[in-house]
């Protein structure tokens, strides 16, 4: 097994795995090896070594460059947007004092569907196959066998719908994603595209559309017929193809779940970075919490703006 020496003492093996994880993704076998250790020990070691690595970074005599004015301005706009969503701060504040700094938000701010996954962890990042455009996603989907047995069969019942996956209280007061989508559509500023039938069996019978406002960077995907998922096993993840970026690496648009019963659901698209010119939106099936780069094994929806 690459990177794992069976003759190595367990403590050393654990340390080596965590150190490797600091800088690069672990292989599946390494992940399995890591999972054999006590989770609390792993968490403690991970925290200690990350702190040590950060301190080493600070100990280097970096040539400090002042933050460019344009970046400063972008950050201030971003901050305004961040605070314009009270749930963003509330969401962060309500998190218990965890030592693990994984900032991936698996649950949405109050009143909205799951927010963009913002993983700052290097684990389980897989390099994608070099597909040059979004059409390649469908080709990949058509070529890959459907293996997600747990995905399509007997999904566990969810406790909340996509529009109410966060703690209650504020949910009722906030407009539903469907209402917000309708308002955005009525504004006349938004672009809209249908979701055509896909080739992946998991996308069979899925219809819907995407509504996207390039100015406000807000958008929604509506689905009918998307199969319920068990979030403990897999989750859906939205991707935005931006004409201004490398098409091999679409922008993460957030993860979401479909509750038992499914039906007509509307999911907000939440991007963590500016999308300059959205040209397509895709939905993949990923591991819980989503991924930084999709392996594109299951593409269940793809809508192209024209």
């Amino acid at each position, binding site marked *: 097994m690459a990177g794992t*020496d069976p003759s190595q003492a367990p403590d*050393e093996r654990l*340390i080596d795995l965590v*150190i*490797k994880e*600091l*800088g*690069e*993704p672990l292989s599946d076998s390494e992940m399995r090896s890591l999972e054999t250790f006590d989770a609390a020990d792993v968490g403690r070691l991970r925290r200690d070594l*990350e*702190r*040590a*690595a*950060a*301190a*080493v*970074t*600070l*100990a*280097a*005599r*970096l*040539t*400090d*460059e*002042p933050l*460019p004015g344009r*970046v*400063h301005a*972008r*950050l*201030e706009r*971003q*901050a305004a947007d*961040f*605070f314009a969503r*009270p749930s*963003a*701060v509330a*969401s*962060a*504040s*309500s*998190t218990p*004092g*965890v*030592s693990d*700094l994984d900032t991936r*938000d698996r649950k949405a701010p109050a009143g909205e569907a799951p927010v963009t996954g*913002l*993983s*700052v*962890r290097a684990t389980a*990042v897989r*390099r994608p196959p070099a597909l040059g455009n979004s059409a390649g996603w469908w080709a990949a989907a058509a070529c890959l066998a459907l293996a997600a047995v747990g995905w399509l069969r007997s999904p566990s019942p969810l406790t909340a719908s996509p529009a109410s996956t966060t703690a209650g209280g504020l949910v009722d007061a906030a407009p539903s994603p469907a209402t917000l989508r309708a308002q955005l559509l009525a504004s006349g500023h938004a672009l809209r595209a249908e979701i055509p039938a896909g080739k992946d069996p998991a996308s069979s019978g899925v219809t819907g559309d995407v509504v996207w406002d390039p100015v406000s960077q807000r958008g929604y995907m509506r689905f009918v017929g998307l199969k319920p998922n068990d979030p403990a096993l897999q989750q859906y993840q939205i991707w935005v193809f931006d004409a201004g970026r490398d098409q091999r*690496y679409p922008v993460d648009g957030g993860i979401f779940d479909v509750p038992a019963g499914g039906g007509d659901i509307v999911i907000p698209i939440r991007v*963590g970075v*500016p999308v300059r010119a959205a040209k397509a939106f895709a939905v993949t099936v990923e591991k819980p919490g989503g991924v*930084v*780069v999709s392996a594109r094994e299951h593409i269940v929806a793809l809508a192209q703006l024209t």
Partner: protein
Amino acid sequence: MSSSVLQRIASGDQGAVRVCIDLYGALVWSLARRLSRSIADAEDATQEIFLDVWKSASRFDAAQGSEKVFIAMIARRRLIDRLRKITAEPPMESEEVLDSIVWAEPGSAQETASEAEQAARALQELKPDQRRVLELGLLHGLSQSEIATKLGVPLGSVKSLMRRGLIKVREYMNIDAERVAAGS
């Protein structure tokens, strides 16, 4: 103890965000420049890092470390994530730049946080090859295999050097933390 910038952000103080950008903008930008493929990429990374910082602000615990180290942790993670996502190649820096790292002297003005001073002290005690491996892995984002190739040493040696080096840094930080806790 007065509220830190991150604690203020966590409590919803929007003004603290500007302070946060002013205080840590150069640090984040410098790290982003070092570990990004282009200026545009560094700009995007800087935005993502600050968003991560704001969203994680409530998780900051001053008892566990400095604000600066907390932000450096977030920045480092995000940048490594992006680096691995964007390319299988090493970051944009040239060989000359790769060779240009100079570690801060303990007690000198280059130190940016007490934990960095502890790390600097530990680094001084490391063997040159241990320091070099940490430098390539932590500051330049090279994978262990890339480091092995670059230095012409077996992968196992790289792992061993990294392990010993980082454990030494951790020991120094823990020892100092215990000393501080004991009030000495």
